[in-house]
Each structure stands twice: as structure tokens, then as C-alpha cells.
């Protein structure tokens, strides 16, 4: 047999690399802006397109799907070709994948500031973009499996198991979480409502972390770390155990995002139990990585790339230890909805994803440009300022989280809340927020230095677009064969491996999602809960557009500190018409689940115009454009119709007269405001939003007996 000659495609790797750096800088800059907005609301630059509620999703989407996403594709396209001894299956598909993905990101950058959002966290993009994501993801899958099929290596290395699991699980997650009913070109309603929608969202949200931020990175770690350190992987057996255990257990852990909500108790407990079991499988990856460095620790002292890897792996270990701890309900009761969670995710994002990405970039760019890194000193500077940035970010956020979490729960001996004004707790932690933005700024500075360093590296070298390689073709599998373990057999059967991974992740998915989605007794109905009026529905869509749920939750947990502060705890039956649910995940401001009737219309009007008029010191931005913009009532009929399709009991034909009811309610509110000397035209957006806010949580007040 003759060895075959072929070429690795380095150009596509380079392209994804450039995209990683550019989007990384953009995403982190937006992050820095939103961080500053949290203590200086004026940083919204006085217009709706750059206000916190709209660009916080832009930050998360940009860093997750643009920065990390492109880094994944860079790492996968580089390592996959080499691990399989084959060029990518199709250059055309690679191109489509690259440009398609960038187009999706650009569309996110345009639509999110415009307020076009589904409000599902980390899945905010509207339905046409969801479809585009699905198509591009399939392109990626075909390209990957095509390469696997034409491989010159019999068995699949552990990195590729992780890539396969990533591909198949993200596909399932994305599709299930994108069941939306389009209302117009860029507006849709989630098919699920209330508790069900929340469960689907957090099953998705948690596993987006698992299968977008964790498994592909573990795969990349398994390829790049042994390459960088020139050491063998510590334990093949550990790889097998932690891979299967990780993907099986991870999928169950989603409900820990919904502890103390109206999610059925059994689902919450399953979430907690599996989160605890997730500790060891997560650490398996860290241990296998760190022990791979055994005998190479002397190199870590001199090699900045390995330093990045070690800190990255350690950050991964810390975040995956903290995760299970935070899922314990006693800890969760304090940490949930506070900055603690922000600190937790950023240890993972800045430490694990960021540092691994930087290490890979520093290692890979000089190699595909056949040159040396332009400046080791700059890379070293990047490492130290990045590490410092993470510390400056995380420590104040932990501090802020503890402080606020505990303040909100404190009572005086007289039995009333020590800090009844939520704002007081917010103002207490503002210095910590300032510190956090300094940390973020340092980290971003490091990335900019890296960009310059890599740029100079590329300029001094020359891209080897097609890198020659040589390998023997695959011989026919000998049937006589020697003893092989079952896993070894599976490693040469990619399709079976994909199906196995799919089955493993579907177990938890079905057991947790199905009963909640199908058994009606899990969500007791409440007779007093009625569908929103047309005006309230429009107001709700404005609430979604402005991204209010980024800072305000809508679920009162059954704690004394919350029922005293906000009112009766939330019931599952209250949310049955909420397509989508709007519980939120962070309380930068107070909960709004029982906001209705708490203040007068005039209070809301003034507060939305300038929050500091009613709450001196508030960090909420002004929403003055709501005072001038007209409500688009042309969409009312389509919205009512869509809601009825989803099972909301609007009478047949109601959509035709809905706008009459809408005008009537507008007039009521405008007249009421007029009594308080506020002159506002009936058809302004603020009227609709006030209508919605005044409705929140009031159904149950109307009929308390039905709630029991």
C-alpha cells in the first residue's frame, strides 16, 4: 500500500480564528458598556438601541455564539482534520458554514438592539434567525461527518467523541427550544407557556452551557493540551468514564435554575440530585488535563501558553465545583437572582473559555503561518493582566452577591424587613459594580494586546493555506481481529457513537420534560386567571422588546422575605397564558410578579420617564421614548389569533373587535393620568406598558379562595 498525499485546509481555520478575535473584542466591549450602565445609567447613550435591556442579550449572544462559537469551529476544523488524517469533507460547505455563521451573528447585532427578541435567555434571536442557525448547524454536521467518513484513521480520538456529542445535543436543544409560532416577520410567541416554557428554557439554557461552552472545549483541550505539552493523555479509561457520565448527567441538571419556583417539586429535586452527581464527571476533564501535564510542569513555568491552559482548567474546576454547590437549595436561596451567579458564570467564561481560546490562538496562529509568535512578552502581559482581570471581576461580584442576598433576607426584631426598599440594597453594592467593570476592562485590554500580537505574527509569516500531509489509507478491517473492548469497537463506528450519545442525552430530557409538558395535573389551574386584554398583551410585548426581564424577575419564591416584600408567592396556574414566560434570572431591580396595583398609573408614568423622580438613586435607565412612540395596533389581530392557536381562550372572532377594547382601556388610563395632570395621548406606547404592569399578579388578588 502507498501512503496518500493530501492537504489540510488551514485557511478556514485562520478565518474562524480572525472571527474569534474580532467578535471577542466586540462582545467584551459591549459587556463592558453594560457593566458601566449598571452604575451609570447615562451610559445607555440616551437612546433605546443601546439600553441595558436590549444590549445585555447582545453581549451574551456575542460572547457565547460569536466569540466562543467561532473559537469552537476554529479548534474543531484544525484538530478534526489532523486527528482523522483527512482534509475537511467539502471546502464549499466550510465556506458556507463560515459565512453563514457570521451572517447569523450580524443579524443578531442588528435585531437585538432593535428589540426583536423572544426573551428566552441565550436564545433571544427571532424565528427566521433560528431557522438559519438550524441550517448552518446541519451544514457543520454534514461537513464533520463527511470528514469522519473519509478518514484515514480507524478509531476516533476522545476529542471527536466530544465534538459528536456537541453536534447532536445542540441540534436537539436548539430545535426544542425554538418551537415558536410566528406572528410577523420578526415576532413570534413560544409554543409553551409559563412553567412549561420555563422548564424548556432552562433545560436549554443549562445545556447550552454544557454542550456549547463545555463539551467542545473539553474536546479541544484533549487535542491541544497534549500537543502543547508534548505529553501523553493521562488516562484513557478516565476519558471514557467522564465523557459518558458527563453527557448523561448534564442534561438533567437544568431545573436547578428554577428552584423555589412553581416547577413541580419532583423536577426540582431531580435537578439538584443530578447537579451534585455532576461534580465528579466535570472534574474528570480537569484531572485528566492537569495530570497530562505531569512531568511537564517545568515547562509551565516558561511557556505562557501552558500557563493559560492551567489557569483555564483550574477555573473550569472551580466553576464546576461551585455549580453543584449553588444547586443546593439552601445555597440557592441566597445566591439565586444575585451577582453571585454573574461571578460564577464569568469564572467559567473568562477563565475556562477565554483562556483556553487564547492558548489555542497563541499556539495555532504561528503554526499555520509558519513562524514564531511575534512577542512572548506581550503574551505574558496578556496572561497576567487577564488573570488579574478575572480576579477583579469575580471577587467584587461574589461580595456583591452575598451582600445583597443577605440584605434582602434580613428582618428586624419587629418582624419587618430591615431593608424594605430594594433600591437600598442595590446602592450598597454599586462600588462592587465599579470594581467589576475595572476587572472587565483589564481583561479586555489583554485581548486587545493579543489581537495586536497575533496580527504582527501573521504579518511576519505567510499563511500555509493548504498544508501538505501524508497518511496510509485505511486498510480493510480484518475480520479475524484480536480482542477489543466494547468501547474500542464503538470508537470506529461514528454513526453508532452519535446515536449512543443521542440516546444518552434523551433519557434525562424525556423524564424531565415529558411529564411537565403533558400531564395537566402538574400545573393546577386557577379560575380567576384570565387572558390578557389586547392592550395588556401589547404592553407585554413592549416589556419583552425593552428586555425588562433582564433585570426584573416575575416570580415570587415562597420565602418570608419575598412574600413580605412582594406579596403572595407565585402559583403555577398564574402563568398559563404567558407565552413566553418572563420569570427572568436576575434581580437587578425588584420582582414585578405582583406589581399590579402597587402604585398609581402616574407613579409608573413618571418612573418610566425618569426612574430617579420616583426612586432617587435608581440605576434604571429612562424610557422616555415610550412617551413619544405610538403603539402599533395593526398587529393586535394577528397576535390575538396566534394566542388563540396556542390555546389562550379568546372567543372566536375576537381579533376583529380587539382594537375597540384596546382603545377603551387606553382611554381609561389616559384619563386617569390626566387627573394627575399628566397629559398623554391615548395611543402612546407607555399607556400599553402601564396597562400590563398594572395587571401583573392581580388575578389572584381578585379571588384568593380559588388560589388555595
Amino acid at each position, binding site marked *: 500500500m502507498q501512503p496518500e498525499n493530501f492537504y489540510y485546509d488551514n485557511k478556514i481555520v485562520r478565518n474562524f480564528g480572525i472571527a474569534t478575535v474580532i467578535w471577542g473584542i466586540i462582545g467584551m466591549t459591549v459587556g463592558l458598556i453594560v457593566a458601566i450602565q449598571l452604575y451609570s445609567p447615562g451610559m445607555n447613550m440616551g437612546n433605546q438601541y443601546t439600553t441595558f435591556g436590549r444590549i445585555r442579550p447582545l453581549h451574551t449572544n456575542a460572547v457565547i455564539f460569536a466569540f466562543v462559537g467561532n473559537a469552537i469551529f476554529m479548534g474543531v476544523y484544525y*484538530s478534526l482534520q*489532523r*486527528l482523522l*488524517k483527512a482534509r475537511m469533507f467539502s471546502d464549499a460547505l466550510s465556506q458556507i458554514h463560515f459565512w453563514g455563521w457570521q451572517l447569523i451573528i450580524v443579524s443578531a447585532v442588528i435585531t437585538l438592539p432593535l428589540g426583536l427578541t423572544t426573551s428566552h435567555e441565550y436564545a433571544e434571536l427571532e424565528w427566521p434567525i433560528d431557522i438559519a442557525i438550524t441550517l448552518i448547524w446541519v451544514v457543520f454536521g454534514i461537513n464533520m461527518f463527511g470528514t469522519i467518513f473519509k478518514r484515514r*484513521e480507524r*478509531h476516533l*480520538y*476522545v476529542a471527536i467523541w466530544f465534538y459528536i456529542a456537541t453536534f447532536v445535543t445542540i441540534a436537539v436543544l436548539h430545535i426544542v427550544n425554538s418551537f415558536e409560532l410566528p406572528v410577523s416577520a420578526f415576532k413570534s410567541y413560544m409554543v409553551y407557556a409559563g412553567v412549561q416554557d420555563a422548564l424548556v428554557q432552562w433545560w436549554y439554557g443549562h445545556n447550552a452551557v454544557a454542550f456549547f461552552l463545555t463539551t467542545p472545549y473539553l474536546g479541544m483541550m484533549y*487535542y491541544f493540551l*497534549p*500537543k502543547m505539552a508534548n505529553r*501523553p*493523555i493521562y*488516562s*484513557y*479509561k*478516565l476519558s471514557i*468514564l467522564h465523557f459518558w457520565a458527563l453527557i448523561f448527567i448534564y442534561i438533567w441538571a437544568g431545573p436547578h435554575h428554577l428552584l423555589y419556583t412553581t416547577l413541580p*417539586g*419532583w423536577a426540582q*429535586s431531580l435537578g*439538584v*440530585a*443530578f447537579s*451534585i*452527581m*455532576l*461534580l*465528579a464527571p466535570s*472534574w*474528570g476533564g480537569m*484531572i485528566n488535563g492537569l*495530570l497530562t501535564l*505531569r*512531568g511537564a510542569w517545568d515547562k509551565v513555568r516558561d511557556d505562557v501558553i501552558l500557563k493559560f491552559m492551567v489557569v483555564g482548567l483550574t477555573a473550569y474546576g472551580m466553576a464546576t465545583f461551585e455549580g453543584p454547590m449553588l444547586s443546593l*437549595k439552601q445555597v440557592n436561596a441566597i445566591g439565586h437572582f444575585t451577582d453571585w451567579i454573574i461571578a460564577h458564570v464569568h469564572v467559567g467564561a473568562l477563565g475556562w473559555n477565554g483562556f483556553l481560546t487564547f492558548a489555542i490562538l497563541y499556539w495555532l496562529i504561528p503554526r499555520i503561518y509558519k513562524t514564531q509568535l511575534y512577542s512572548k512578552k506581550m503574551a505574558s502581559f496578556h496572561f497576567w493582566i487577564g488573570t488579574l482581570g478575572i480576579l477583579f471581576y469575580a471577587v467584587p461580584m461574589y461580595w456583591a452577591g452575598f451582600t445583597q442576598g443577605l440584605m434582602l433576607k434580613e*428582618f*428586624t426584631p*419587629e*418582624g*419587618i*424587613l430591615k431593608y*424594605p*426598599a430594594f433600591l437600598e440594597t442595590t446602592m450598597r453594592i454599586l462600588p462592587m459594580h465599579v470594581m467589576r467593570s475595572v476587572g472587565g476592562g483589564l481583561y479586555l485590554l489583554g485581548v486587545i494586546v493579543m489581537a495586536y500580537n497575533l496580527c504582527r505574527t501573521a504579518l511576519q509569516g505567510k499563511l500555509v493555506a493548504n498544508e501538505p500531509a501524508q497518511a496510509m489509507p485505511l486498510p480493510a478491517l480484518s475480520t479475524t481481529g484480536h480482542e477489543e473492548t466494547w468501547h474500542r469497537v464503538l470508537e470506529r463506528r461514528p454513526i453508532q457513537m452519535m446515536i449512543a450519545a443521542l440516546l444518552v442525552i434523551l433519557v434525562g430530557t424525556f423524564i424531565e420534560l415529558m411529564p411537565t409538558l403533558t400531564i395537566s395535573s402538574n400545573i393546577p389551574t386557577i379560575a380567576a386567571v384570565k387572558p390578557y386584554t389586547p392592550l395588556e398583551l401589547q404592553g407585554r410585548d413592549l416589556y419583552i422588546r425593552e428586555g425588562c426581564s433582564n433585570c426584573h424577575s416575575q416570580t415570587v*419564591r*415562597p*420565602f*418570608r422575605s419575598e*412574600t413580605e416584600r412582594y406579596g403572595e*408567592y407565585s402559583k403555577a396556574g398564574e402563568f398559563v397564558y404567558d407565552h413566553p414566560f418572563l420569570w427572568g434570572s436576575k434581580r437587578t431591580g425588584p420582582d414585578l410578579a405582583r406589581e399590579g*396595583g402597587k*402604585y*398609581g*398609573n*402616574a*407613579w409608573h408614568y*413618571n418612573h418610566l420617564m425618569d426612574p430617579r423622580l*420616583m426612586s*432617587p438613586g435608581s440605576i434604571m435607565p429612562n424610557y422616555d421614548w415610550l412617551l413619544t412612540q405610538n403603539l402599533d395596533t395593526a398587529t393586535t389581530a394577528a397576535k390575538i389569533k396566534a394566542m388563540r392557536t396556542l390555546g389562550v381562550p379568546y372567543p372566536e372572532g375576537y381579533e376583529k373587535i380587539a382594537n375597540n377594547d384596546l382603545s377603551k382601556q387606553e382611554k381609561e388610563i389616559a384619563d386617569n393620568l390626566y387627573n*394627575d395632570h399628566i397629559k398623554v395621548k391615548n395611543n402612546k406606547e407607555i399607556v400599553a406598558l402601564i396597562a400590563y404592569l398594572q395587571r401583573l399578579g392581580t388575578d389572584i388578588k381578585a379571588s384568593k379562595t380559588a388560589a388555595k
Partner: protein
Amino acid sequence: MKYRRLLILLVLMIPLHPAMAADDSLIPGDLMNEIGYGAIIAMLALFIVAMLVLLRALRVLTKITLRAQGYTEEQIIAEMKPAKKVKKPKTEVWNKLLSLRPMSEEKELIIAHDYDGIQELNNPIPGWFSYLFYITIIFAIGYILIYHVFGVGQLQYDEYKTEMAQADIAKKEYLSKAANRVDETTVKLVTDQAVLASGQAVFKQSCVPCHGDHAQGVVGPNLTDDYWLHGGKINDVFKTIKYGVQAKGMPNWEKQLSPKQISDVANYIKSLHGSNPANPKEPQGEKDADDVAAKGKTIAKI
């Protein structure tokens, strides 16, 4: 022996300390605590000093005894220096703890295969890792059993009931002791400066956004004129603040202010009557006869 007794005594004294602080002590509690901490630290420092002295004494004693037995100076020095234990290299302990095989045996562990030059070792899964995994699995099973099979653990709604019941008991107990337990029927109109100052502080913090910094009325009504929407008696004002008036957008403050605070701010508001602030909101509600009479009185007095 003597020192051990002292130590035991010290340890025993720590929990005794608060009990010794009599309730009717003239020294405030905080100061008492600080004195207590200082005392404990001083005692601990003394203890360390005592131990050092003891150690020194023992050394001297050994030297004297050895000299008496006819040892030379060099021999004594040699005797005093403890024999160096043959320490295992640190890595070995580390390796055992992590159940790692020595690096020298690595060659035997290499699996005869490589992927783009990457080799894998056939190391066993570290024992401590497996135990960690087993423990978490046992915890998880135990968790489900406790909360859903045996019903020992409380789920969230039962937890809530317990929390509220406990809070209720604690609150009742506290309020039964507290003298300032007022409600809308027992509240009294007073003009005591301390009460008004406390009421003003509450007003500044909670009422200004809606009623204006001089109670002249903004979104909420003017509180300084003769007109009241919900009654102008101190009892009525107290009631309005406590329960709110939902239809008019007045929040209820029952859960945010203590009864004393509500009483103080109600008195403060009453004290503002007739202060004629700038830019007053137009009168709302009914004219209060008492107010007019009261105003008349004040004017007459002046």
C-alpha cells in the same frame, strides 16, 4: 499539667462570658463584647508566652541533667538536636494520595496507538475520583429518598409554612415585650420633637417622591392643607399609611415600616399642617373641621 488546667479553664470560660454579663450592667453590650474579645486574646497570648517559657525551661533542664551525667558540650548539642527523619520525597506522598504510578513506569502504560502524535496512557481511574463519584451518587439517591420517599425533608411550601410560623412566634414574643406597640386605634397625636424628627426621617426616605419634599403634593395629594381624602385624624392618617389606598395608588407601608415608624411619620405629617409650602397641589377631598379649628387655634395663639 498546670498549663493544661489553665487552658481547660480558659476554654470553659469562653461560653460563660456572655452569661456573666448581667442584663442590668452599666457597660453597653458592644463595649462588653470588645472587652471580652480583648480578654480572650490577652489570655491566649499569655498562654503562648507560658508555653514558650515552659519549652525554654525544659531545654535548660535537659542541659543541666545531661551535664550532670557527664556529657561534653558537643554531645549535649548533638543530643538536643532532634534526629532528622528520613523524609519521603514529597512527590511520593502526593502520588500515593492521587494513586499515581511513578513516572519511571510510564513506558509500560503507553497504549500502542497515537492520533496525530498524541498518545494515551492506560492509567487506572484515580481511586479518590471514583470515591468522590460514589459519594455524590449516594448523596443524590439519599436526597430523593429524604424529600420524596420518606417525606422527612420539607419541600418548599412546607418550608415556607414553618418559616412563617417561626417568624410569627418570634414577632409576637418581641412585640409583647415592646412598649411601643401601636395601631390605628391606639395611636396618639403628639408634638414631641424626637418623634417628629424620626417621622421626618421616614418621610424623607419614603414619602417625598409622591408627596413632595415639603408635602406640597406631586403625584400624591398635598398633605399640608385642610383637605383630606381619607380622613385627617391621626388615626385616619395612620390607617391610610398602614394599609394604603390601592385605588388611588397609595402603597401600603405595613410591611416596610414598623408601627412606631408609621406613628412617627403620621405625627410628622400632622405637624406640617398649615405650613403653606411653595407650589402646593390643589385641594383634594373633604375639608376637615378639626383642622380648621386647630388652625384657628394656632393662629389665635400667634
